[in-house]
């Protein structure tokens, strides 16, 4: 791990409080986290520990109430200095954050290629170039043979691969994976993790996998435990895949 | 770029079909649809021209028989529908005192005859007396010349003779007067007989009683009819023909007649008389049409349709009457020129019963004219020619 390079994401003292006054709940009480390009880290913790809140903050979906966030060395959020640096969070998500969900959540009315190509298209890249990039990713993920298929014709594993391809489509420096293996058996779950690891290396992207899936926890080299709104970093087993 | 999928093709085809159907509907059903017309060629033909009128069956001569003076009807001897002969007694008026007056007249005449006889006797007596006085006077004159008698005596005899002569003349005058009186009484009597004859109502012709208008005992005024008689051989139609269509109406035209009681049976007739005075209120002319061979028992007053045949117009340029339209204040036809309607003003002549009308000018033989259309035509309107606009009856 090249610790001298710029971290893909660095957060310090990130806080999130829901509500105000007596009803206020502190979901995040100062989270620190640093993830480097090419690295896959696990984010684990029990229900209600603030896992999802952290993910939403990282994904620029909800606004934290304090702390500091950097993406590829660039500050995107500073709780002391006016919050989000950009007013266009959607562009931020579109261009710099990839999402993989528990379910694939593909767009059912688009075919496989267009599901992946949609992101570059939304970013303003013309259709042909976007489809070309999509096809490259699909090839890398070994689903190029289903490029013209409808989403509904795909198996669950194939759909998940397409979803991963979509998250990579705009070369985002960071990919947030929310329980990507929950509905899968252990073999397939491990396959997904292996793919994520491969992709992280291949595209030099940082991947944060939120999970409580015991089958895959041993595969992480680094794990952040979140408990009671705070994170604790520890080394993982880093079991080879 | 990938090829469109088969589904997209199918959908596109369906959409295309749908739009084609839509276009067809708009183009054929709505106000944007092309006007459909039927077309005929103007051509020379023989036009059977007819006049049409409504007539009633009437008797040419109808005899209303009634008394010449007011009186009471004594007897009516015939009834409605009876055939009568000329001279037959139909009814009698009550004579009232006529017979008594006749008897008195006869007596007066007889008395006048007797008076004549008596006057003749008186004349004979006066004559003989005059002759005697004359002879006596001549004898005395002779005697005076011979101076056997005095002058006075002779003069007296002359006077006597003159008086007797005057008496004879008076008797002759009385006789003439008596004769006159006898003649007067005789003619009085004859006059009463005539009156008596007038109370007898007799038929003037052989005919049929069409009305019995009074019954015995009722009083009628002079001139009121008691019985009506017609001559059935003189039944004819009184036909009313619209003035606007009466051109050519003349005596002698052959007529087809359909009586209302026998609409299917065509009777032949001819125009016998055209009334010189028309009906100004109804704007009709009146023609009398004989019934050729009348079928019998047709009722007077029965309606009849009369079709009068005018001499046909030979070699007339004609178009169907339905083609003649009016635009503004002009009559004309719509010609079909290169698929478009063109108005041509024409003047028209008579029309035939089968729907052809003569075109006097404005059109040439062989010109195509629009006969029927499903909308009002306008100049230069594009039209579709079809065989018929109305579906034939199944």
């Amino acid at each position, binding site marked *: 791990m090249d610790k001298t390079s710029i971290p893909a994401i660095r957060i310090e003292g990130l806080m999130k409080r829901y509500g105000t006054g007596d009803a206020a709940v502190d979901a995040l009480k100062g989270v620190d986290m640093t993830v480097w390009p090419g690295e896959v880290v696990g984010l684990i913790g029990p229900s209600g520990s603030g896992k*999802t809140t952290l*993910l*939403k903050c990282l*994904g620029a*979906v*909800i606004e934290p109430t304090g702390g500091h966030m950097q993406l590829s060395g660039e500050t995107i959020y500073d709780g002391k200095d006016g919050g989000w640096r950009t007013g266009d969070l*959607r*562009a931020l998500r*579109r261009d710099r954050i990839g999402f993989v*969900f528990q379910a694939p*959540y593909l*767009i*059912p*009315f*688009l075919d496989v290629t*267009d599901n992946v*190509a*949609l992101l570059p*298209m*939304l970013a303003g890249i013309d259709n042909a170039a976007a489809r070309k990039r999509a096809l490259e990713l699909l090839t890398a993920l070994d689903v190029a043979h289903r490029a013209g298929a*409808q989403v509904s014709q795909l198996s669950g594993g194939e759909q998940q691969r397409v979803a991963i391809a979509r998250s990579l489509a705009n070369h985002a420096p960071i990919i947030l994976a*929310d*329980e990507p293996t929950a509905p899968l058996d252990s073999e397939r779950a491990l396959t997904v993790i292996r793919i994520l690891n491969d992709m992280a290396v291949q595209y030099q992207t940082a991947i944060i996998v939120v999970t409580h899936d015991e089958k895959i926890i041993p595969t992480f080299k680094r794990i952040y435990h979140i408990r009671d709104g705070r994170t604790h970093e520890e080394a993982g087993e880093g079991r080879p895949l | 770029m990938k090829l469109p999928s088969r589904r997209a093709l199918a*959908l596109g085809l369906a959409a295309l079909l*749908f739009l084609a159907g*839509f276009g067809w*509907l*708009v183009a054929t*059903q*709505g106000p944007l649809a092309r006007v459909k017309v039927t077309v005929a060629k103007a051509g020379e033909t023989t036009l059977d021209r*007819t006049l*049409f*009128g409504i007539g009633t069956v009437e008797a040419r001569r109808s005899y209303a028989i009634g008394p010449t003076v007011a009186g009471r009807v004594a007897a009516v001897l015939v009834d409605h529908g009876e055939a009568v002969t000329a001279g037959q007694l139909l009814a009698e008026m009550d004579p009232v005192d006529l017979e008594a007056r006749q008897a008195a007249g006869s007596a007066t005449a007889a008395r006048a005859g007797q008076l004549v006889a008596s006057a003749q006797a008186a004349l004979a007596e006066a004559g003989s007396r005059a002759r005697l006085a004359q002879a006596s006077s001549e004898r005395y004159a002779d005697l005076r010349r011979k101076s056997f008698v005095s002058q006075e005596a002779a003069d007296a005899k002359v006077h006597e003779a003159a008086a007797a002569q005057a008496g004879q003349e008076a008797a002759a005058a009385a006789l003439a007067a008596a004769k006159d009186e006898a003649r007067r009484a005789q003619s009085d009597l004859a006059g009463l007989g005539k009156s008596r004859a007038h109370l007898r109502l007799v038929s003037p012709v052989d005919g049929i009683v069409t009305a019995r208008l009074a019954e015995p005992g009722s009083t009628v005024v002079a001139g*009121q009819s008691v019985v009506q008689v017609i001559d059935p051989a003189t039944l004819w139609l009184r036909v009313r023909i*619209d003035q*606007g*269509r009466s051109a050519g109406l003349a005596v002698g035209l052959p007529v087809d007649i359909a009586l209302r009681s026998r*609409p299917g049976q065509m009777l032949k007739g001819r125009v016998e008389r055209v009334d010189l005075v028309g009906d100004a*209120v*109804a704007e009709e002319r009146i023609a009398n049409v004989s019934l050729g061979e009348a079928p019998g028992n047709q009722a007077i007053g029965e309606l009849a*349709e009369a*079709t009068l045949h005018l001499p046909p117009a030979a070699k007339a340029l004609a178009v169907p*009457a*339905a083609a*003649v*339209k*009016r635009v503004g*204040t002009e009559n004309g036809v719509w010609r079909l020129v290169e698929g478009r309607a063109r108005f041509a003003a024409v003047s028209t002549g008579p029309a*035939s*019963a089968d*729907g052809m*009308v003569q075109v006097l000018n404005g059109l040439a033989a062989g010109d195509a004219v629009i006969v*029927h*259309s*499903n*909308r*009002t*035509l306008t100049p230069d309107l594009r039209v579709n020619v079809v065989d018929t*606009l*109305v579906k034939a009856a199944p």
Partner: protein
Amino acid sequence: MINLAGRDILHGWGKFLFTGVGLGLLIGVTLSMAGIYRGMVDDGQVLIDNSGADLWVVQQGTLGPYAEPSSIRDDVWRGIAGLPGVAETGNAAYLTMQIEHAGKESRAMVVGMEVDRPNRPGAPAYLTAGRPVLAGHYEAIADELAKFKLGERVRIRRHEYEIVGLTRRMVSSSGDPMIFVPLKDAQEIQFLKDNDALLNERARTAANPAFNRPGVPGLLEAVQAANAQSRMVNAVLVRLEANADPEAVAAEIRRWKRLQAYTKVQMEDILVAKLIATSSRQIAMFLVILSVVTAAIVAFIIYTMTLAKVREIAVLKLIGARNRTIAGMILQQALGLGLIGFFVGRLAAGLWAPVFPKYVLLLPGDALRGFAIVMAICALASVVAIRAALAIDPAEAIGG
């Protein structure tokens, strides 16, 4: 950028199409309603246009001959024909009556027209079959709506008439087919009574001592003959010279002939504004309600369609799709639905319009207006759905 709306429509085209067709039928009903209204107005309009008159002269103080009964002497035309500007006059009699045909009674308007010359005022402007009336009596031209055939004989009151010609769109203001007969026959139809009425009338006259006096033979007959005469018509139709001012001639007739005269404009006002005012308002009301219902249904359909895509919209938002993109998708779908609906509706209305018993007139202008309104309604209706879509939280895609 690919068209998301189009892709969505193509993906669920069956559902979309059926929804569109359903909406289309509703729009078809609305268009038909407008067509019925236009048809009513047109019925009045053709009545005016087809009579071929520039002026209608009727009884003083009436709105005749169509909207009110009017009765004038049939020689009144002689006085009118002499006025300056008058080209031609024609007597006309109108009466609405039941006519029996093929065992069924149907309503028809019998029109008495002058037939002595072709194309007198009041005669039908065009025929679709047969010929004009050529004989002076007992021939008739019928509108196709009356379902008579050429050559058929139809009994009207005391006489049988032969149908010699057929015409189209010659209807009364209430849409009844017209049957054109010669004027004299129409007068007879209108004023001469049936046998029983005649006998009763005769008996009534005979019982009146003023008309049946002893010693005056012929008086009763004369009175009865006078009673049976029918020398009235309903209107005199006047055609004007090309350069005559209708209002001036009408004023002349009103002032000096002591009759009412209406110009074409006034007649239109009577027929369209007065005679069918209530029924047309009724239909207009229904039209408004139908439009509102259509709008509500479109809004509802599009709203439901949007709600069915909450998850997709949340994902789209999460991966960075702009509001404009999402709103555009919904709007395009709404307009697409409206487009299908409109075409289906216009097609449906066009298909079922000829089946209506009365005239349904689908004007291209109305269709265009309808199209604009449908599109506007769809756009408006999509606003609700767009607001709902924009309120979807992209966070819904993450976790739960």
